[in-house]
């Protein structure tokens, strides 16, 4: 009992010592002019777009900085009833996987495409942690346009990190698993012999951005946590933090925390790509989905791929090395010059900083400490630039301001710590509320950080906002980092559990698509004018070629639908004007409604179960006559002979107005 008390007291003392002084209270943390600095007057725009991962809601949330205003929630890995993503026939293929339709995921990290190490505003990449996937969003439309499933993996955590010219996006597995072409039905006891940690390199087409799983590396069966590519002189290399070098498979909180040092794995991706070109690696038979959204047909397709090239440790012996890193490294961050590799031992009481030049020299000098499962281990001291002493407790992630400073989030001591990269001296520390995970500086993981703001994404929110029952909003905090000392400016709530985020100057995204040109609409069921509207029966399938424009649908009434028919409403929004979407909903629809952008075609499948009159209407308040934007579908019992007819904008409406007969094919 006595010793327990003593232990508790000791840890409190250690915390105080480590964090330097008692954390400041909330009241004193905000400076007087904070409100002014985050105030974006009505009608004015924010300076930065902030893309924040949605965590377990599987989406990406877009905020404006410095105001912290939520601009949009972008569906990526989760179905979204707001606009029918994942519910419409066109977008269902986006969520297809080798395990079937997976309408949710755990979205952790984001990466903005880069050119010469600088963010270029073309695409945003997002990972799905649970059913390993990588998505690409087009920043001209803010739409998810591609999702690639990752085989031989589980827990796609060290992803999606990009090389400096967006040549590759990586997907390192968090869970070691048996390879897909081997029997997975093995005892957990066989972990050490059967389980592998696979790193995937997805090639990205320079022009289109299309992804293709170029190759994988079958690394030792450890857990890969996070990663970052090098830049400039280290641009050919990729760095991954690894934990559980113990290869434990039970009670990891103890058993994976035994080794004093785990690793950062350095992979020369250029050499690996050359090896693949030279015919190295084995073809592994597997199955993974590749889903692409075609922006001219407004339709996604899902293709199942069957094979992947996998390089072995043996293939990679001159292109893959381990650097020891204190206790369970989490973040693995490269400074803007590409020289310093910052590891963050989340259980360590220091931050190790490695030097790329030293690492290269150690490899040349064969300054190795041994091997780990066939991978050469560089001597810790040989690669070490130095250690940041007493930085705080639980260092997780580091970003850079481009002025020679690094900022590290401290989960346990709940603060952000600023330190100098060269002399490793701590310069400033500010409390967070509470338990910060990732932090983000716009461009802070690129060669050109904008160095103006820092956002901390917190894991706990107690007392920050009005309580909402047992479950509270998540929280982000904005700091001004333009001066010597960081200044807390703003709290703003976020969705899901925000993990990583990216941001770029709003200036860079000014060439966005405002509406889709109807002439360019190549959707096979597009209706490019009201005159083309029609209803066509093909057996028990009924295709409704429908148009929407302020403020009516064509056709607006349909009769002759039978119970059990599969009715496909292909709705084309004829508007050619910015911000005039139309919605489409019908009573009893089991999936969702649609939200159709100007010039776009979307399809809702509806299978009526009972005879009756089913109203359909526009769900998005589009004009003064929005409420009039409606119609009916008459459903007759199965097998009945009600003729298939529809009315098409009959002015001076009356019940006897002429109607058109539907076609039967």
């Amino acid at each position, binding site marked *: 009992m006595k010793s327990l008390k003593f232990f508790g007291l000791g840890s409190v003392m250690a915390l105080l010592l480590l964090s330097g002084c008692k954390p400041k209270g909330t009241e004193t943390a905000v400076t007087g002019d904070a409100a002014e600095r985050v105030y974006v007057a009505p009608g004015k725009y924010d300076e930065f777009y902030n893309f924040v991962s949605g965590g377990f809601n599987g989406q990406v949330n877009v905020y404006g900085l410095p105001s912290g205003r939520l601009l949009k929630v972008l569906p990526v890995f989760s179905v979204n009833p707001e606009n029918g993503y994942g519910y419409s026939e066109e977008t269902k293929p986006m969520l297809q996987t080798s395990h079937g339709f997976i309408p949710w995921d755990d979205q952790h990290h984001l990466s903005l495409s880069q050119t010469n190490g600088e963010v270029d505003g073309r695409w945003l990449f997002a990972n799905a942690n649970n059913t390993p996937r990588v998505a690409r969003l087009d920043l001209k439309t803010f739409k998810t346009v591609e999702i690639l499933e990752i085989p031989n993996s589980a827990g796609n955590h060290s992803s999606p990190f990009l090389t400096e010219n967006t040549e590759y996006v990586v997907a390192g597995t968090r869970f070691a698993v048996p390879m897909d072409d081997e029997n997975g039905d093995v005892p957990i006891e066989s972990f050490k012999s059967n389980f592998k940690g696979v790193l995937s390199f997805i090639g990205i087409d320079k022009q289109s951005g299309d992804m293709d799983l170029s190759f994988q590396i079958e690394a030792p069966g450890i857990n890969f946590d996070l990663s970052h590519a090098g830049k400039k002189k280290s641009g050919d290399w990729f760095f991954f933090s690894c934990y559980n070098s113990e290869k434990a498979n039970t009670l990891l909180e103890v058993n994976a925390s035994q080794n004093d040092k785990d690793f950062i794995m350095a992979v020369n991706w250029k050499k690996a790509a050359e090896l693949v070109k030279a015919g190295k690696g084995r073809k592994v038979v597997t199955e993974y989905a590749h889903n692409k959204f075609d922006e001219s047909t407004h339709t996604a397709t899902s293709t199942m791929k069957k094979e992947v090239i996998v390089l072995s440790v043996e293939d990679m012996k001159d292109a893959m090395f381990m650097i020891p890193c204190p206790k369970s490294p989490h973040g693995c961050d490269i400074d803007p010059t590409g020289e310093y590799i910052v590891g963050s031992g989340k259980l360590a009481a220091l931050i190790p900083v490695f030097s790329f030049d030293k690492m290269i020299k150690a490899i040349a000098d064969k300054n190795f400490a041994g091997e780990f499962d066939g991978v050469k281990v560089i001597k810790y001291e040989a690669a070490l630039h130095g250690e940041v002493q007493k930085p705080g407790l639980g260092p997780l992630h580091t970003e850079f301001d481009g002025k020679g400073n690094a900022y590290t989030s401290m989960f346990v001591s709940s603060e952000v710590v600023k330190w100098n990269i060269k002399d490793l001296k701590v310069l400033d520390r500010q409390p967070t509320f509470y338990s910060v995970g990732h932090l983000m500086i716009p461009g802070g993981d690129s060669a050109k950080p904008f160095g103006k703001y820092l956002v901390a994404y917190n894991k706990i929110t107690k007392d920050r906002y009005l309580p909402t029952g047992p479950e509270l909003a998540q929280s982000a905090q904005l700091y001004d980092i333009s001066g010597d000392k960081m200044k807390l400016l703003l709290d703003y709530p976020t969705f899901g559990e925000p993990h990583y985020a990216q941001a770029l100057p709003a200036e860079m995204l000014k060439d966005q698509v405002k509406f889709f040109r109807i002439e360019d609409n190549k959707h096979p069921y597009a209706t490019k004018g009201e005159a083309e509207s029609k209803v066509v029966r093909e057996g028990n399938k009924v295709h409704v070629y429908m148009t929407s*424009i302020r*403020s009516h649908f064509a056709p607006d009434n349909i009769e002759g639908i039978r119970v059990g028919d599969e009715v496909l409403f292909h709705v084309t929004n004829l508007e*050619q004007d*910015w911000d005039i979407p139309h919605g489409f909903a019908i009573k009893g629809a089991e999936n969702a409604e649609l939200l159709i952008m100007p010039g776009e075609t979307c399809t809702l499948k509806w299978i009526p179960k009972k005879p009756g009159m089913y109203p359909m209407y526009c769900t998005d308040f589009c*004009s*003064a*006559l929005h409420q*009039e934007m409606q119609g009916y579908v008459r459903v007759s019992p199965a097998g009945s002979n009600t003729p298939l007819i529809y009315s098409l904008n009959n*002015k*001076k409406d009356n019940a006897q107005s002429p109607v058109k007969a539907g076609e039967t094919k």
Partner: protein
Amino acid sequence: MKNNSLKKITRIALVFCGCALVVSLFVPLWSIYLTAPQYPEGLAMYLWPNKITGEYEIINGLNHYIGMKTIHPDDFWEFKVLPYALGFFAFLCFLTAFLNRKIWLYLTLVLFLIFGVAFMVDFWLWEYDYGHNLDPTAPIIVPGMSYQPPLIGFKQLLNFGAYSYPNIGGGIMFGVALILAILAFIEYRKPKQSEL
């Protein structure tokens, strides 16, 4: 006889006017510009000698609420005539410079002024027709309200502010008319000066 010929500067100015009128064939004559609270970026429509460009399709969409006819370039006989008229006046300017006779200058001025006035009257009638000839079944009918845009200047039409003003081509037409008038005035005064 000598008094009937033109000054060198007049002939140069006539050639300039002719060239300007040739330019006017390839630029918009008139702009109509609409703004509303929900259209802060504005909607523009440009009248060229032979076509309409700009966001007239969107304007058509909006105008259906008040029952205005939709605008289609094919509906205007003017587009078949205007390019020839402007070309004719360009030719007339060159011809006058070449013939070097005052009477031709006066003739050009008078014809061009008639053309200009006719153009404006036609434009006004066209606007009147669109603004007044409304569909009685329109969803929005404001008693006593018409929607004729201004000939030149600004007018508030319900939630829309309508601006109408000459574009490059219209500017050229005004400029040419003004230059021709000044030239005619100078040439008219010239013999009197020489008598003094």
